[in-house]
């Protein structure tokens, strides 16, 4: 199955006609329809691309509803797009049609301290919410690495994660209600400021549905107090097995670190070339451990983790004693992806999840895949929640290497599925992994998902071609098209 446009693009006169109808709804300054304007919207953070017929920027839920009703009348597919930082092609208008952008739906509508809630429009940038709340000692917990750019609407669509999910959960644990324009063009509300709205949990169902069940126009989020202290340690280990055992021992001791990041030897070497963070390049793995919470007893916890690392043959354990030292310890990890640029012209970030305890076996199998395809793979791992980010290094200028990288991606996901893991921990299915869904779900499983989608979307125009493969499609790796591997955050 290819990821090209599945129907020919509208002709220029058709596009102009469509644009005029959109202008009738939102005014002339909120519709883009000329090619040189649309090119900016052809890409997101993934390898996929497709040109929309128009981009429309509504400034109210009512306008969104009218746009959806217009699309239904004219049989035009529509796709919501936040900041376009997504990594699985969720904001790409695969079937053509229009993009709905949220640049004009980007206000924080209400901060309700008494109820620890905020109501925001989907175009608000994630980090901006927390910045505004900081003076009250609060923040919005989900902090995906894209948070300086990604929008709350996008976070809702993808159920975004980040490095701190083991303790604090993901976006769905911090969203309590939505205003949604359904694919019928109706404005409905789910959840609310209070818990347990009667009926089915439509809010929970909608979060992570990748823009295929409707268009969010308001989000009610939970506010959380800022943490009191943060303690950071770095353990340097001889082998991944040792580091992995240390992770298990830490959890067995009853401590749940806020972050637990592991890097393997190739990642370390790339990082050391780029930033000289002081990692020994012959070490098997490093483990970055971060604890958050109250100040009392924190030193005991840190000492406990030091002991566990040493018990697992850690070559050394560094404990940050100041914010500066903490930044130094993280510098290597934060630059890991950027550092790949030192050792390779391109790289493909993968996102899979495995049960934590299977890590050593999985890394051995990934090494075998690397050797089979002749492409190096560096591994960065959210050891706390089993979310693996293998980085496949390749050179896009060498013919066939993009395709090879894609195949490596598919094989790695097969390994994740094989050990009882998941195809994606953060980036979503989108286009990228749609045709690999049969690795973890049967036809019966996906049939239920199709029914649920059909309950929301009876017209089939709401971000079509995402998440679910067409019934009965084969498990071959999606063919590659031209594209670039794009640098991403975590």
């Amino acid at each position, binding site marked *: 199955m290819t990821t090209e446009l599945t129907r020919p693009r509208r002709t220029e006169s058709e596009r102009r006609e469509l644009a005029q109808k959109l202008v009738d709804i939102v005014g002339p300054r909120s519709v883009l329809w000329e090619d040189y304007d649309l090119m900016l919207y052809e890409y997101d953070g993934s390898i996929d691309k497709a040109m929309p017929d128009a981009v429309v920027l509504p400034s109210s839920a009512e306008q969104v509803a009218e746009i959806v009703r217009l699309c239904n009348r004219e049989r035009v597919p529509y796709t919501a797009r936040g900041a376009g930082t997504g990594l699985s092609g969720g904001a790409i208008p695969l079937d053509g049609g229009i993009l709905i952008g949220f640049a004009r739906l980007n206000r924080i509508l209400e901060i309700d301290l008494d109820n620890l809630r905020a109501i925001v429009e989907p175009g608000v940038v994630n980090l901006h919410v927390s910045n505004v709340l900081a003076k009250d000692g609060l923040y919005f917990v989900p902090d995906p690495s894209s948070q300086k750019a990604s929008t709350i609407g996008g976070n809702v669509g993808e*159920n975004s994660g980040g490095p701190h999910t083991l303790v604090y959960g*993901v976006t769905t644990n911090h969203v309590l209600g939505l205003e949604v324009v359904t694919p019928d063009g109706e404005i409905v509300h789910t959840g609310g400021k209070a818990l*347990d709205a009667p*009926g089915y949990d439509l809010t929970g169902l909608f979060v992570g*549905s990748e823009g295929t069940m409707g268009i969010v126009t308001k989000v009610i989020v939970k506010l959380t107090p800022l943490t009191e202290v943060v303690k950071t340690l770095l353990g340097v280990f001889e082998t991944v097995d040792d580091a992995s055992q240390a992770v298990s021992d830490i959890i*067995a001791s*009853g401590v749940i670190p806020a972050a637990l990041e592991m890097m393997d030897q190739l990642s370390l070497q790339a990082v050391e070339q780029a930033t000289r963070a002081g990692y020994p390049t012959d070490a098997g793995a490093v483990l970055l451990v971060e604890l958050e919470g109250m100040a009392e007893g924190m030193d005991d916890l840190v000492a406990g983790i030091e002991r566990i690392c040493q018990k697992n043959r850690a070559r050394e354990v560094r404990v940050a004693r100041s914010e500066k030292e903490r930044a130094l310890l993280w510098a290597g990890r934060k630059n890991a992806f950027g550092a790949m640029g030192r050792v390779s012209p391109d790289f493909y970030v993968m996102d899979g999840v495995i049960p934590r305890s299977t890590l050593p076996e999985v890394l051995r199998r990934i090494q075998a895949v690397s050797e089979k395809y002749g492409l190096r793979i560096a591994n960065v791992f959210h050891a706390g929640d089993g979310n693996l980010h293998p980085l496949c290094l390749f050179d896009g200028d060498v013919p066939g290497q993009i395709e090879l990288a894609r195949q490596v991606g598919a094989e790695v996901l097969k390994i994740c599925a094989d050990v009882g893991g998941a195809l994606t921990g953060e980036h979503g299915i989108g286009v990228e992994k749609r045709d690999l869904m049969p690795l973890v779900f049967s036809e019966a499983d996906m049939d*239920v998902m199709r029914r649920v989608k059909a309950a929301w979307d009876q017209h089939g125009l709401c971000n079509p071609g995402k998440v679910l493969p067409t019934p009965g499609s084969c498990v071959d790796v999606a063919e590659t098209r031209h594209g670039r591997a794009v640098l991403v955050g975590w």
Partner: protein
Amino acid sequence: MTLEARSETLAFTALHDKAREQLAVDGLKPRLFVAPATPEEAARALAQAHAERLATSVRGGGTRLGLGNPPRALDLVLSTEKLNRVIAYEPADLTITVGAGIAFAELQRVLGERNQFLPLDPAAAPGSTIGGIVAANASGPFRLRYGSARDLVIGTQVANPTGGLARAGGRVVKNVTGYDLNKLYVGSLGTLAAITELTFKVTPKPEAEATLVARFGDAAAAHAAAYRTLRSPLTPSALELMPDEGGARLVAHLAGFARPLARMLDDLTRFATEAGASAVDRVEAGEAERLWRQLRDGPAVPEGGARLKIAVPISQVVWAIGAVEAAAKANGLTATTYAGAGTGVLRASLGGGELLPAIRRLRAEAGEHLGSLVVEQCPLALKQQFDVFGDLPDNFEVMRRLKNQMDPGGILNPGRFLGRL
């Protein structure tokens, strides 16, 4: 003459009178019973029920049958009693997979052996199963810190009337693969599918715990102390208000490692005192256990009375306590309320008279305060007169379509859900 292969139909047991009585739901007695031994059998049973259009109720421990509108029909009870194994437990991964019919107490016992627990604390009468708890989205005071079932379920397997067995989520705690159908099944009260298997994320048992009771002259002062705690770095597991004649008690559960626990005790004592508490006492373990069981079970319901669950934004908890008192007084009723100061979830029992006007009034007022009122338990006659879950939300068409998609024959608990779906 060739003999055709006979399809393997499951035998549904015909129930005798006494059993029909015991398995009745809101007075409606089923005729048939099946207890599948495997999820596959459950799927076949449900497919058969669908083919024969048998109104079917999934049953765990039968401890929460009072919840829901009266069923329109009841032919078959599908029991999960045999789906009660621990299927996979990975302490190092903090995940466990169990059959939906496992007793809640047994699940916690298994986790306890490895010093872990599932941080759900619903009212759980003996025999209460995890499947039933999840299907009812039952929760308790600990949801303040740990969330409710929707935050703890990471994978489901269900039997549905048309398609056999289906999975959603998985066995890993971080997962955005496919639609989050787990959220759909939680709280769906057996109206979309029969849950056969559940995977949870679990958590280590805390090193130490403590229960603090602070006495206040009024609920507002108690709530102020609670709110201050919510804005602080403290991580209480529960903050419950128990209003009474003399004012209100704030009952707090704190847990963690010894030193942060000590700090939490100090800070909470100070917050309470500064908010005007006349006494702040640490309660010893035995009494604490009794108190938390009382809070989990909710206030006792007098004969002929009702238990309500009112959920409001947290700033409206004090209003809600007062509203229950006022509505009870205006209608000559007795009322007892326990309120989650940090969750906004109150449980109130009403009794001793005409309940309907009080319930209608409270439901309307709860709505005006951005909340909801669900009647968890009440006399059957009352259930005919209103929807126990509430008025139809503006998204109800989506719910109706979901129900139609998942249960096109309308055989699963017909009439019991919101909107008598």
